[in-house]
């Protein structure tokens, strides 16, 4: 089966998931992002690469934050940006996902940035667009959020350049997390030898160890000697019910506090994809503490998204 993200020459055509992308392409994206970091510090924070191109942010699931970072990235590349929040209720009135996409194709958009609540929805769209349109996955269901995974490894690489000698721990709701899946694939593809997940059994998907991670159910053991601690967001609706008894108990057992962070290496960095639930998955003193790189993640997120768009937007 051909990888739907690559063209016949093995070049990136769409960015749908990190899984299955060669290390060479991930490194190319990260290296290119490195060159975009400086652009944001200049007087004129724009380069003319995508001048005259139209980037369309299609969000079937609302997310102002992610949409904004893609919008800034596209604008810094001089693209025109259209934002479209597809109300799910208008979908239930009869317009299908393909109707929506066909309309935007007819408007001559060049690049689609898509978020959708269903796993695989962005693959589905990528299969139906004409050849000249590139599709970027901005998060589909529980499946993938590749630009987040890339910006996370970009951040790791900036603080801990020796990727081949790292111990990374992901903490929290892996079961429902597209971010976790993309982070795991990005880390393992780039050669990080030890990736751990720490969570109660109710928040881990079946066969998670087959993704190449070690499974822990205890913070003390799981964080021991970690270089990087990646926290995952716990959705409100999952804090109490049949998956977890309460947010309080979760914070007590799996929330990241200064005390639990002390199990990791003293120079370990703490990351979070945002938005954070302070006092549920992470204590404020850690989130705002000296080991936190949560805000740099946001800054790098723009450079990484610029890099992805710049690589997809060029070439005949």
């Amino acid at each position: 089966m051909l990888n739907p993200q690559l063209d016949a020459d093995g070049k990136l055509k769409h960015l749908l998931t990190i899984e299955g992308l060669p290390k060479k392409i991930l490194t190319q994206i990260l290296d290119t992002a490195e060159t975009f970091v400086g652009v944001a510090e200049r007087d004129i924070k724009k380069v003319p690469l995508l001048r005259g191109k139209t980037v369309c942010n299609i969000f079937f699931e609302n997310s102002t934050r992610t949409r904004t970072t893609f919008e800034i990235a596209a604008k810094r590349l001089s693209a025109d940006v259209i934002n479209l929040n597809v109300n799910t209720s208008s979908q239930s009135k009869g317009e299908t996902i393909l109707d929506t996409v066909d309309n935007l194709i007819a408007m001559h958009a060049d690049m689609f940035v898509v978020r959708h609540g269903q796993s695989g929805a962005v693959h589905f769209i990528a299969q139906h667009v004409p050849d000249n349109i590139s599709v970027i996955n901005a998060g589909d269901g529980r499946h993938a959020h590749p630009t987040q995974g890339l910006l996370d490894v970009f951040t790791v690489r900036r603080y801990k350049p020796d990727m081949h000698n790292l111990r990374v721990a992901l903490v929290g709701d892996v079961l429902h997390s597209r971010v976790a899946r993309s982070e795991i694939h990005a880390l393992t593809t780039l050669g990080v030898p030890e990736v751990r997940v720490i969570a109660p059994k109710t928040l881990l998907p079946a066969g998670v160890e087959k993704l190449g991670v070690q499974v822990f159910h205890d913070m003390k053991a799981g964080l021991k000697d970690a270089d990087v601690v990646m926290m995952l967001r716990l959705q409100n609706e999952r804090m109490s019910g049949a998956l977890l008894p309460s947010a309080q108990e979760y914070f007590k057992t799996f929330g990241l506090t200064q005390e639990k962070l002390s199990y990791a290496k003293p120079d370990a960095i703490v990351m979070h994809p945002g938005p954070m639930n302070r006092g549920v998955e992470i204590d404020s003193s850690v989130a705002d503490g000296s080991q936190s790189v949560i805000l740099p993640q946001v800054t790098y997120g723009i450079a990484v998204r610029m890099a992805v768009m710049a690589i997809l937007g060029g070439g005949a």
Partner: protein
Amino acid sequence: MKIHIKNGHLIDPKNNIDTKQDVYVAAGKIVGIGSAPKDFVANQTIDATDLIVAPGFVDLSARLREPGSEHKATLNSELLAAAAGGITSLACPPDTDPVLDEPGLVEMLKHRAKLLNLVHVYPLGALTRQLEGKLLTEMCELTEAGCVGFSQADVAITDTQVLWRAFEYAATFGYTIFLRAEDYYLAKDGVAHDGEIASRLGLKGIPAAAEGLAIASILRIAHETKTKVHLCRLSTAEGVDLVRQAKKQGVQVTADVSAQHCHLTDHDIGYFNAYANLKPPLRSARDRAALCQGLKDGTIDAICSDHTPVDDDAKLLPFAEAEAGATGLELLLPLALKWATDNKTSLFDAIAKITSQPASILAIDGGHLSLNANADIAIFNPKLEWKIDASQLKSQGKNTPFLGLTLLGKVQYTLLHGQITYQA
């Protein structure tokens, strides 16, 4: 009309025939095997050289979509497809709209099918009204109207007391209950086998245990109430083991597997291929191997098409939103043959799984070519390669994970009551 089918290789598992023999048909019946009856003069001769002559196939599950979903398929389109697939008898599940829970609806369906005169249609009545799992249907009335058994289609009965009583009531009259075993709560919102693939793709999983748990309770109740039960669409190794044990213990249980599940696993979902969205979900390679072995050792009695035509509007959607199911009537034969080849068993066995065995489960007179039996016959070329191409399928549903693949075995003639209903 008198037909002489000559030079064919006759396979009739019910009568244990597997040899080159001519077949003679007159007045809709089989009137001679091997030698013609006295004064037989054929109006038509079918040259079956290099072809297999078998009883018309019997399919345990084909959704015809009438009444209620004529935009997906019609009785006419699907019965033509069945004839093209060599199928002469089929059972249809009750999940139509309205649900087949009233005698009038069953009579109407039987009547319409009879007018078309392409395939014998045997409806399965709803076990509970509206398939809601609360109130029993009028099983005696429904049987009188033409139902050959009772089913919940894909809807589980969660109230075990209702399940128990439905079994007791059916057992009173000796009716067979057809159930697809799946625990409602463990399967809720799930769309794929709960394993590595679902975890990678971020699809909500249905654990294999959902089938095992449901089978265990169904078998226990069937055993206590002495009810004949048929387990539809086994999908797990665990399920096969449970049925094997139950058969040893003398529970009156039979089971089938869909032709799709004999060949595919959750790996075939690939990059979210909605055609591989099936009910039950495609499971692991280990499960698939156990299903094939179960068929071979007789634990699983029959292969069915589980024919479910789905229109593009319902299929061209992200994986989890797409309607489950595959079109299958025209693929039943090649997929059954492929099972036999892949598992080093005989053509005879494959034919038994789609003729005599399902006929015996439905307790219908069909699936055999005895003297004086209905001349329902499938004549096929087991070695003919053909590519599964949407434009070539007669069914209105073009949804199959086998699209684009080449399979072996194609029907050349189908006869119902001695009339040719399909000719390639």
